[in-house]
Each structure stands twice: as C-alpha cells, then as structure tokens.
C-alpha cells in the first residue's frame, strides 16, 4: 500500500449486466488510484463502461466484484461528498435555477438565509445571476449544464464525478466551460474524475488520461500529461500537446482485440 491514501481507489472492480440469461461484462478487474486534488480524465470507445465506472464511484451502482474506496473507506450508496454531474444535465424541471442549486443545501438542513446566500454565490460563479429565477426549460444547453455545475458545487463536495458533461455543447461553449472548470479546480483543488469522448478535452484538462478498452471494459493505458497549469489556448497549439493528443488518440483508436470471443 502506498504511504498516502488515494482519494479514490478502484480495487479490482468488475461489473456485469444480465442480458437474456448471459452476463455482459461491462467492467473487468479495473484498478485505479486517484490522488487527492488530481484531475483525471477517462476516454474510451462508446460502451466501454465509462458511465458504469462513474456510477459505481458515485455509489449509484454496486459492483459485482471488487470495491471502490474513498478516503480509504468502502463506498456504499451515494453521498453529497461526491458530487455528480450527469450528461443529461438532470435539472429538476419544476424548480427554478435557484431552487435547483438550493436543493442539496435544503437536504443538508441549511437554513433558508444561508441557503440563499450560498446559492447566490454559485449561481454567480457560473454566470447565471440574471437567470436565477428562470425555469430550466428556458435555458440553453450550456446554461443548463452550468446550473448543474452550480448545483453540484453548492453542497461543497470534495470529489466531482463528471460524465461527459460538455458532450452536447457547441465547440465554443465547451471551451469556455473547460476553462472555467480548470479555473475553479486550480483554486479549490477538488478531486475530479471526468469522462469524455473528446481526446482534445481529455488532454487539455487532465493530470492523467485513462484510456479504456471495450469488451470487456478495462483500463487500457494511463497517460501522464506533463503540461503545466494554468492551461491556455496557446498550449493547445503546442507540439507537446499535439504529441500527447496523438498518443491518446492512438491508444483509443488502436484498441486491443476483445478478450471474450466466445460470446456473440
């Protein structure tokens, strides 16, 4: 065991889904340590088990085998300590932006006065002050995602689990939200597990990129990103960045062949 307890530790995690009698191996013996304050991105082909991995870390799914430890303690069930940002925003459509952001605080028993102040701060942080009393249906995709981020931040989690949060956004909004995310991360140093389809995004954000392989889902390669923070637009154009991107792209594209040849 390493002298420093990792913030998140996947220990030999396997998971399968029952599909008409046989088990589909979604995750196969995944082991991974994430240090406190680290920003880790996960890339891999569609269906390789990225969301499954995140749901297990969130405590929304119990793995068939192995376990996830957070601060050295096994995860059973979700906790507000681990904030989750879903790909489909998952805002409560009957609540205004403000009510959405206050939801977690209300559950934590925070008084109305303080709730309002905290919510205000995070709504301001994501630049939605003018829309605090708007319903989600009146927001654009990027605004919804910013609201979801504010809602997750409001309960002050030490870990952020993000499942392709910017996947549905246009290129410009995506880059803006990436920079904003890095900005808050470098100030507050939450541990982030960030899932994405986008190789560029994976390299730009991370300390480390985890490349997964499919059938069964497993860790294929781990690539360290030795670029300094803060990361800038210029860095995206640097040869180092290009080289890293090529390396990640190569390992995503040239996947090891599926192990289980037996199942159709």
């Amino acid at each position, binding site marked *: 065991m390493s002298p420093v307890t990792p913030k998140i530790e996947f220990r030999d995690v396997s998971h399968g889904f029952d599909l008409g009698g046989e088990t589909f191996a979604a995750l196969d013996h995944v082991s991974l340590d994430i240090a406190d304050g680290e920003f880790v991105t996960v890339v891999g082909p569609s269906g390789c088990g990225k969301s499954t991995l995140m749901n297990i870390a969130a405590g929304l799914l119990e793995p068939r085998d192995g376990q996830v430890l957070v601060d050295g303690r096994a995860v059973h069930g*979700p906790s*507000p300590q681990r*904030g989750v940002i879903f790909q*489909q925003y998952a805002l*409560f*459509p009957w609540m205004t932006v403000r009510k959405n952001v206050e*939801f977690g605080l209300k*559950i934590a028993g925070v008084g109305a006065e303080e709730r309002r102040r905290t919510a205000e701060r995070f709504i301001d942080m994501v630049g939605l002050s003018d829309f605090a009393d708007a319903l989600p*249906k009146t927001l654009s995709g990027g605004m919804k995602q910013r609201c979801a981020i504010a809602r997750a931040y409001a309960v002050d989690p030490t870990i952020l689990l993000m499942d392709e949060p910017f996947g549905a956004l246009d290129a410009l909004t995506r880059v803006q939200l990436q920079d904003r995310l890095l900005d808050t991360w470098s100030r507050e140093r939450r541990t982030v597990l960030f899932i994405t389809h986008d190789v560029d995004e994976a390299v730009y954000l991370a300390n480390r990129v985890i490349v997964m392989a499919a059938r069964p889902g497993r860790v294929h390669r781990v690539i360290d990103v030795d670029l300094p923070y803060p990361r800038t637009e210029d860095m995206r154009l640097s040869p180092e960045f290009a080289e890293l991107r090529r390396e990640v792209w190569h390992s995503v594209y040239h996947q090891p062949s599926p192990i289980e040849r037996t199942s159709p």
Partner: protein
Amino acid sequence: MAEHTAGSRAGKRRSTVPLTIGSGLLGLAVWVLLANSGIQGFPGPLEVAERAVTSIGDGTLFGDLFASLRRVLTGFVLGVALAVPVGFLMGWYPPVRGLIEPWLQFFRMVPPLAIIPLAIVLMGIGETPKIFVIFLASFLSSVVSTFQGVVSVDSTLINAARVLGAKDGRVFTGVVVPASTPFILVGMRIGLGASWATVVAAELIAAQEGLGYRMQQAQLYYDLPTIFVQLIVIGLVGLLMDRLLLLAERRLTSWQERR
C-alpha cells in the same frame, strides 16, 4: 424575435375564432333544416330555448344540474383521493403493483355502468350506488395514470437527488411527486369525463332527480325539447369542467417542456 413568434402565435389563435363562430352557425342551420324537414316532433332552436327558459324559471333545470353535479363531484373526489395514494404505492413498491394490477386490468374492462345492477341490488336505490359507480369510474382512470406517472419518472432525476444527499422519503416527496403531477392531472381529466358520462347514464336507470332522470321522464312523454335542453346542458357543463381542469393542469405543469 421572441416577440415576433409570440405575436404570430396569438394571431393564429385569434384566427380560429371566426371558424368557431362559423361552425356554430353552420350547426344551427343544419338544426333548423332538420327541424323543418318534417321529422315527427323534432324541435327547432327557438322551441328548445323557450323550454330552457321555463325550466330555469320553475327551478327544475338548476335543481337537476346540482343533483347531478353533487353526485359527480362526491364520487370523483373520493375516487381521486383513493387513486393517488394507491397509484403511488403501486409505482413505488413493485409487490403492491403485482397484487393490485390484475384487478385493475380486470375492472377496467368492465364498463362502470355494468356495475349498476349489482350496486343497486347491494346498496339499494338511494344515492350510494350512483356515487359508488362514479367513484369507481374516476378511481380506475386516475389510478392507472398516477401509477404510469410514478414508473416513468426519469431515473436520472432520482439519481441526481440521491447524489445530493436525498434519502428515499425526500426522493419521493421532492422528485417523484412533482414529476408525476402532469400524469395525475391528465388522469383526473379523463376521470372527470368518465364520471360525468357515468352519472347521466346512472340517472337514466334509477333516480328521482338529475339531468339523466329528467331526460328519462321526457322520453316517457315524447317531450323532445326537454331532452334537447338536457343534452345541451350536459355537453356544456362537461366541456366547462374539462376546460377548468385543463386550465389547472396548464398552471400547475407550466414547467414542462412542451414538444
């Protein structure tokens, strides 16, 4: 841009008004034609209007209307009051669903009116059997939609609440109840329609007052104008109740994205 679309939509809505009026006039014309075509005893609009005025004057119309409305509202409120908790329980606890659903499916296939003979034998000919049948009609339609509402709550919303620290009770009151409100309201509308249809039919079979009873009496005396008055009142009141619930529905679920 937004103003522009809002303006043009309002314009479209306004443009249906002449059509509605035209449709009404056309219907009236057909009615007059039918009345003049020599069908035995077929009353024209004027004759029906006169009858409406006299039955408002002697108090029978409103007396009948209130008798029918009282039955409908009593049965409807009781039915919904039971349907909502039962629907929630069915959606939330699969074993409850397993126990109740076969019976629901069965009774949904039996028209409420077919229960009337049984209800009369068991409960006498007073108010109870009629209210019971209406209760049944509104219960059956509301319970199914409440249950549908609960099972179709988006699971990512439930997960979103859980990762923010919500336990089962909070997930239920904070997510499941509001998310299924649109379904419940649709069920209530269907239930109210079913109740209204059922009360009139129930009164045709056994009652001493009510819109259905009045029609039944009028039939005995070949009193077509009275039948027309009753039919028009039944249609108008049903329409009015439906619109009121629709309005409530729009108000309460304005957060929904309409596709």
